């Protein structure tokens, strides 16, 4: 069978600094980055869980670690990563069910994911501080 090969003038290597991602793309890459961040901090989170549950003494150590401003900043960062990953994930589950796949609703739900996860992070972050 004969094939015709159509050659398009398409850029093969995309310049990341010249691409303006649409909002759904932005939510998507943040979903990936937040997931990676949460994975990298798993040992730290497990250590916190272990010290919080281990013994009254280790609970004191856990409270002391938690009280440190730097630890709090990291935890608030992880809180944002978790919130974004959760709500972007719920959005992806809805898309799997063919809910909100049109352009306008997809954009709207992307803004909602960004806004809700940021708002919850700020509220919980202020409360935790």
């Amino acid at each position, binding site marked *: 069978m004969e094939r015709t090969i159509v050659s398009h003038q398409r850029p093969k290597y995309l310049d990341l600094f010249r691409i303006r991602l649409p909002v759904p793309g932005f939510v998507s890459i943040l979903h990936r980055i937040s*997931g*990676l961040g949460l994975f990298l901090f798993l*040992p730290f989170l497990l250590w916190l869980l272990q010290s919080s*549950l281990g013994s009254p003494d280790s*609970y004191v150590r856990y409270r002391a670690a938690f009280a440190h401003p730097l630890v709090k900043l990291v935890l608030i960062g992880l809180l944002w990563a978790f919130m974004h990953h*959760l709500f972007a994930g719920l959005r992806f589950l809805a898309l799997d069910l063919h809910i909100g796949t049109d352009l306008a609703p997809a954009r709207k739900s992307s803004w909602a994911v960004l806004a809700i996860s940021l708002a919850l992070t700020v509220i919980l972050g202020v409360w935790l501080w």
Partner: protein
Amino acid sequence: MVKRIIVGAHYGLSDWLVQRVSAAYMAVYVLLFALVLLIARPANYVAWKNLFTGQAAKLATFLFLVSLFWHAWIGMRDILMDYIKPVSLRLALEVAVVALLIAYAGWSIQILWSV
């Protein structure tokens, strides 16, 4: 109708499903756990520890952590497949991720069942 012949290892579909089922379980667990925290408001060690003393709580939490580790494996594998092109390096990193996650699962058992 187009009849497609599907070739390949077929693990894609089961991974896709595991990713979603584990996500759904984690979402439900987190929601329930947040409600428990709001109701119980554990303010000291004993109150906090008591949330985890029952076998059901331990098992539900263990299932959450296993869902998390399995979910993380699929996500990390996707990331490594996308960005790490040299096969040997990718394989080494994949093995490292699997080894870490299995170690975390063992650690989780130790944490939960020493409460």
